[in-house]
């Protein structure tokens, strides 16, 4: 993407004011999407973003600048701006020479989205629309979205690292509105993968649309969710959001180092019941949070964070790892070249258990079964977190009974981890997600088998 000599000269310029570390991150991203709503293919959008972000580190200070101008002059002036921002003490010239380090190559994308005709992409939307409306006249509105992107990145730094990656993502989602006597309800389904258009060899968009429609229709009959603390069984897949919020963010080293995490200083301690083994794994081919190298040039890795309930490690980016004299765990990510990298999750999951999911439900006298989760949010300093339930049912006498309306659940991370008393053998990954932190969104995946929390607070309105 850039000539080696030009990279060396740019890094040299970035270090001219005495920086200890400099990095050039180059990104060239093409994306396209098509949107159907209200029975019509409304609009196709395509976009191109290309530029470089340059950072310079002196002591604990980082200077950062970015430019869309990848010429020698453009890069030099961004390097100067980053260096001025970091303002090191000493001056002088430092030679930098980068050399290529190839990570493992990703599984080849079989059908690059840019090779697929726009008409073919648009056709998927109409199929989904018809399938959802076919579920009954209660379905009064359908929207569907197709999106793909190809993001090529290059990272080079003053330690001599030079690495590149070519990241392809394809996404499809359907949202339905059902109308009934009780008002409007919604249902949504989405799928996404780090592959090309071959995603649709395995994914039946009509089937997705029917599931989304059925979800909206089911909720028309839903009664108000209960309020108060009770046992909660979370179905396979979506429960990953619970861990993403309950402890994932709290295990990010940048928050830990500022004591803004309830998990600070707890490595080696039992933080969860022995059923819980939590892993963050950027190497999972095809998954939404997968990549070959992170946005600091480190290879993706399989990192065990909690083993049998014991906290084994945090997630690290370059800066935090450098300070601790260790290597990054491959969790340094950024939204785009216009952003500084920080510690982020990739694919975060709880490894499989041994119980039959049906036994977990029958052994629950009363409580709530959450089949599908929405997003969540956490305050890492207190550990309090919430997540939404977008499809949920009552459990009465060991059986799943009536659907309940949407709502948030609230819990405290360290407490909830110690209240997981059942883990199923039906592990699945959940829907593709976008994780937000400090205003930056990055694609993440998560997964769990069926699991039970002995007590979580349901934020409904019923007594």
């Amino acid at each position: 993407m850039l000539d080696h000599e030009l990279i060396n000269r740019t890094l040299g310029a970035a270090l001219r004011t005495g920086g200890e570390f400099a990095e050039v991150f180059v990104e060239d991203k093409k994306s396209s999407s098509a949107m159907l709503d209200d029975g019509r293919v409304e609009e196709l959008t395509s976009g191109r973003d290309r530029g470089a972000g340059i950072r310079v580190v002196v002591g604990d200070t980082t200077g950062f600048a970015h430019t869309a101008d990848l010429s020698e002059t453009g890069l030099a002036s961004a390097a100067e701006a980053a260096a001025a921002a970091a303002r090191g003490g000493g001056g002088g010239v430092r030679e930098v020479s980068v050399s290529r380090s190839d990570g493992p190559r990703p599984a080849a994308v079989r059908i690059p989205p840019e090779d697929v005709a726009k008409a073919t992409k648009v056709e998927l939307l109409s199929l989904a629309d018809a399938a959802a409306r076919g579920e009954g006249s209660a379905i009064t509105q359908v929207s569907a979205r197709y999106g793909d992107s190809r993001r090529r990145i290059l990272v080079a730094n003053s330690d001599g690292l030079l690495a590149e990656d070519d990241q392809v993502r394809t996404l499809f989602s359907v949202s339905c509105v059902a109308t009934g006597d009780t008002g409007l309800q919604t249902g949504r389904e989405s799928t996404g993968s780090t592959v090309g258009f071959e995603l649709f060899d395995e994914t039946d968009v009509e089937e997705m649309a029917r599931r989304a429609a059925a979800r909206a229709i089911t909720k028309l009959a839903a009664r108000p969710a209960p309020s108060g603390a009770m046992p909660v069984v979370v179905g396979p897949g979506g429960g990953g959001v619970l861990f993403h919020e309950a402890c994932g963010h709290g295990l990010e080293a940048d928050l830990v180092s500022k004591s803004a995490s309830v998990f600070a200083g707890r490595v080696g301690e039992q933080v969860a019941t022995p059923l819980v083994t939590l892993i963050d794994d950027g190497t999972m081919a095809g998954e939404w949070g997968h990549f070959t190298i992170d946005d600091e040039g480190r290879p993706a890795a399989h990192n065990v964070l909690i083993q049998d309930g014991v906290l084994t490690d945090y997630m690290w980016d370059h800066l935090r790892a450098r300070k601790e004299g260790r290597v990054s765990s491959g969790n340094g990510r950024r939204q785009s070249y216009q952003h500084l990298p920080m510690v982020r999750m990739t694919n975060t999951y709880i490894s499989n258990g041994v119980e039959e999911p049906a036994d977990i439900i029958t052994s629950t006298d009363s409580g709530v079964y959450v089949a599908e989760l929405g997003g969540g949010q956490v305050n890492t300093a207190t550990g309090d977190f919430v997540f939404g339930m977008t499809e949920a049912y009552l459990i009465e006498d060991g059986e799943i009974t009536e659907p309940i309306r949407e709502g948030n659940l609230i819990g405290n991370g360290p407490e909830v981890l110690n209240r997981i008393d059942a883990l199923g053998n039906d592990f699945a990954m959940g829907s593709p997600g976008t994780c937000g932190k400090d205003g930056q969104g990055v694609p993440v995946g998560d997964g769990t088998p069926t699991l039970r929390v002995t007590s979580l607070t349901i934020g409904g309105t019923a007594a």
Partner: protein
Amino acid sequence: MTELIDIATRVAGWANDGEQVEAYVVHERETEVRAYEGDVESLTSAESQGIGVRVVADGRQGFAYAGTLEESALQETLQEARDNARFAEPDEFNGVAEPDGVMPADLDLFDASMASFTADEKVALAIELERATRAADPRISGIESAEYVDTIYESAVATTNGLATTTRETGCYLSAYSLAEADGETQTGFGFSIGRGPSDLDTEKAATEAAERATRLLGAVKPETGRVTVVLDPWVTAQMLGIIGHTLTGDAVQRGRSLFADRLGEQVAVNDVVLVDDATDPAAFTASMVDGEGLATRRTSLIEDGVLQAFLHNSYTARRGNTLSTGSAVRGGFKGGPGVGAQALALQPGTKTQAELIAEIDDGLLVQGVAGLHSGVNPVSGDFSTGAEGLRIRNGELAEPVRELTIASTIQRLLLDIQGIGSDLEWLPMSAAGVSVVVADITMSGS
């Protein structure tokens, strides 16, 4: 640098016969300084620009963008938008905005002193904010972030209909997230100060608020489940208004996604409620002279004395609804076409301070913060349930802090259960103003 309006006008001028083209061009400069432990943690100086092009031909619409204003990219972006339009289905209401003769309000949204505010001065402000927050209370144990951010934002829209408008705005803010600790327990709080230019900023206010919000939650317990009267803090009200604003757009209504569709002229809130969207109010952080399609912004009264009066429209939803645009086209930068949304929503304030409102409540809850609005509020069904923290109200006074609870109701009921609106209207760094609001009969879910 070439003037943005020249670029936009030129691109619109490349339209083929029978084609409508809208070019939206943006240039933005941003500085962000984060301070930590008395030093600069990071300093970002960013300059970005880009173009978004919308093409409508035979009723079909296509869009494309590029994060650069290089000459070759302008041509390519127009071509790409034109090609995209071929694959969309026709809609008779598609099109760029028609000039409607409304003159933009004359607002001064550009503080020229921003350009001469040096990096050293910005750094000094961020470091002072961090110091002041730590010093505000001995129980402040740390800082999650303390930052100074400013932007100089310029944009231009030009269309084949002859619209050609520009905007130039500055904005800056200070924000601090603090950690407070006592007896091994940690709580967090934030504080901020916003302005058009550096002289508007109040470091002490941001620092004091961040410290007070964190320290007053120390010792918080999980409350018992029950129904209570709540006082929504201005910050919380503004977030709720943002969601309500979404349900009052022509877009949500026409697509059957609004719980307020078919309710024009009906009583949807208690009599005291007057809800207005007015981007011409210069006090609003999101004030703007023109909307995302280049039409003048204007004041739209959405709810008057509790009665639903109007919905917000851009040019598409106005044509489709056989009405006029309310100048409510909104864009999320140059990477998307114009949607429709509220730009500066505010409830008409009442006469009582927050303390006076609290004094009238026997058993209640002051909601200081909410979490999970994006997952807990469904703007289509109106169901809402969010995580919350705050202080109990007993016999008219603030009592013990509470945490790990949710509050739940529906948007429909919330508006009808409002018992009081405070006098403490405050514009926040979002498209709505905050004000204290008292709401009866909310389910508080705890232990």
